[in-house]
């Protein structure tokens, strides 16, 4: 039985409107971020994994189980919407407990699992209060608690970091990573691109219903040939280094830093460039640091999808 979430040539149409088209994916366990502008098909993809939508074409199989086997399928999947969906008048504990009961757990187990999840998101003290009095961050966390309470193997979270303060954000990311370390799939959609590298092992980028790229950020960046890789170098002789680099074919552009203590190089062949840099360093240039400047989700997103659509 496959441990991956598999999309086999999946398309979803809403009448004549395209949701997603010809998606072929195999998502391994770990934290996977789903990024893309509004209307790119992220939620459609997530809803299909959550079993809330059926594809118009193709097949979605989650850890070897198809959504048609509903009892097994839904037991394996935990879902948290981005909407504030709190039945009126419930306390945090009752909110988690009431949804847990739909799985058919015994009253004793329901209570135990609910407390376990509430503790995991750090809301025990507030669990007796009505959810109406919760802050946005607390609402996010209690929603996360209801999604993880039945111990799902696949966790699907729509914008789970929205509204969290920095501490809660760090704790939540640590929780995602802990769940991933246990072998779970944690699939999150996010608009906060600069956190994608920090949170996720894999990234799926979507635009206009198509998967534009998927995999590890570094791997994606290497495959974008039309945008030369940017490397930031801090050294003691930036002018000399720049003059040396101008002669190299693989270097497209060299720019001196404003503080004149470093330079930004654009190169078509990153591996060749690093070898060259080693050679230059042996010839009297003191290099303090070398760091890729556009090897992150934000840059990859901008190259593939366009900066005008980012972080809507």
């Amino acid at each position: 039985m496959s441990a991956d979430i598999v999309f086999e040539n999946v398309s979803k149409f809403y009448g004549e409107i395209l949701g997603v088209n010809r998606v072929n994916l195999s998502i391994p366990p770990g934290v996977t971020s789903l990024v893309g502008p509004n209307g790119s098909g992220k939620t459609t993809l997530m809803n299909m994994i959550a079993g809330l939508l059926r594809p118009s074409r193709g097949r979605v199989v989650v850890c070897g189980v198809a959504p048609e086997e509903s009892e097994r399928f839904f037991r394996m999947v935990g879902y948290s919407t981005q909407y504030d969906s709190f039945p009126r008048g419930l306390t945090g504990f009752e909110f988690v407990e009431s949804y847990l009961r739909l799985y058919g757990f015994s009253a004793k187990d329901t209570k135990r699992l609910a407390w376990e999840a509430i503790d995991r998101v750090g809301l025990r003290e507030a669990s007796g209060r009505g959810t109406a009095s919760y802050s946005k961050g607390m609402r996010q966390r209690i929603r996360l608690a209801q999604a993880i309470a039945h111990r799902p193997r696949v966790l699907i979270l729509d914008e789970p970091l929205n509204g969290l303060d920095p501490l809660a954000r760090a704790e939540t990311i640590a929780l995602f990573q802990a769940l991933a370390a246990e072998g779970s799939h944690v699939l999150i959609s996010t608009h906060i691109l600069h956190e994608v590298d920090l949170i996720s092992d894999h990234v799926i980028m979507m635009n206009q219903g198509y998967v534009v790229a998927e995999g590890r950020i570094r791997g994606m960046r290497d495959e974008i040939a039309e945008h030369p890789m940017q490397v930031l170098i801090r050294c003691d002789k930036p002018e000399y280094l720049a003059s040396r680099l101008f002669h190299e074919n693989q270097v497209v552009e060299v720019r001196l830093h404003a503080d004149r203590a470093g330079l930004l190089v654009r190169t078509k062949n990153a591996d060749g460039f690093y070898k060259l840099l080693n050679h230059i360093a042996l010839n009297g240039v003191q290099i303090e640091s070398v760091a890729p400047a556009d090897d992150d989700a934000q840059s990859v997103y901008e190259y593939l999808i366009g900066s005008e659509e980012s972080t809507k």
Partner: protein
Amino acid sequence: MAVYKRTYKGYAGPLTHPATRFLVLQRYAFRAVFKSRMLLMAYMACFIPCILVICVLYLNQNATVLALIQQKAGFIKVNGSFFLNFLAFQSVLAGVLTAFIAPSLISPDLTNGALGMYMSRPFSKAEYVLGKGAVIAFLTGAITMLPAMLMFFVQSSLLGWNWMMNNFYLANGTFFSCAILIAVLTLLGLAMSAMVRWRIVAGALILAVFAIGKGFAAMIDSIMRTHNGDYIDIQILLTKVSTNLFQVPAPIVDEIPIVGAWIALLAICGFLLWILNRKLRVCEVAR
């Protein structure tokens, strides 16, 4: 590259039967409905006629009372008309009650996009409707079917086995006329709650459906000079079915055949179910 060990453990304990899971929805729904003391008091008041009628049934067979008013048999005749009138009164209360409680059942879930929270669990749309509908069905059944059945058994206990067997059609009539009334009210309440997200409007609409249906029926009847308009008048249809079940002659509603009335009521229920199916979408659908 991250290396993941599969150390997570899913739940492996006992499970309740899937057929009973719809009852989970009622747990908090009743509490939400009766959060308003006014509504709770109004609901309690709906039982007063039942208590009074059961007292009357007792007094009707009490020898001391009969001697006091110099009557040999009872002072009221307990027959189909008696049950029909009682249920007609209770049905109005059930309709008003539905208008108050139904709008808070589905519309908040739709407004908050909470349907996905239910449907991402081993819980179907049908179970959701059943769970929400059971709230209305239970509350309206408790003020219609339950007291009417109680009346039948009280009367049977006072007059004996023979009366019970000879008048079994009253129990039969009570059960089926209340069942169709409860089904119509439940589906109407849920459909309006799913259609209209503003609760006051949804409540008003539930009551208006009866008045609008009556108005249209009268219009069709007068313009086309037929009685076919009665097929969209829920009140006439329910009365027709009830009078037939209680074996009461009802010349006013004799214009449409009883089979037609049953078919029309079932068609209305089917239409309301269709509305619910259309409105209860888990995900917003782009058009």
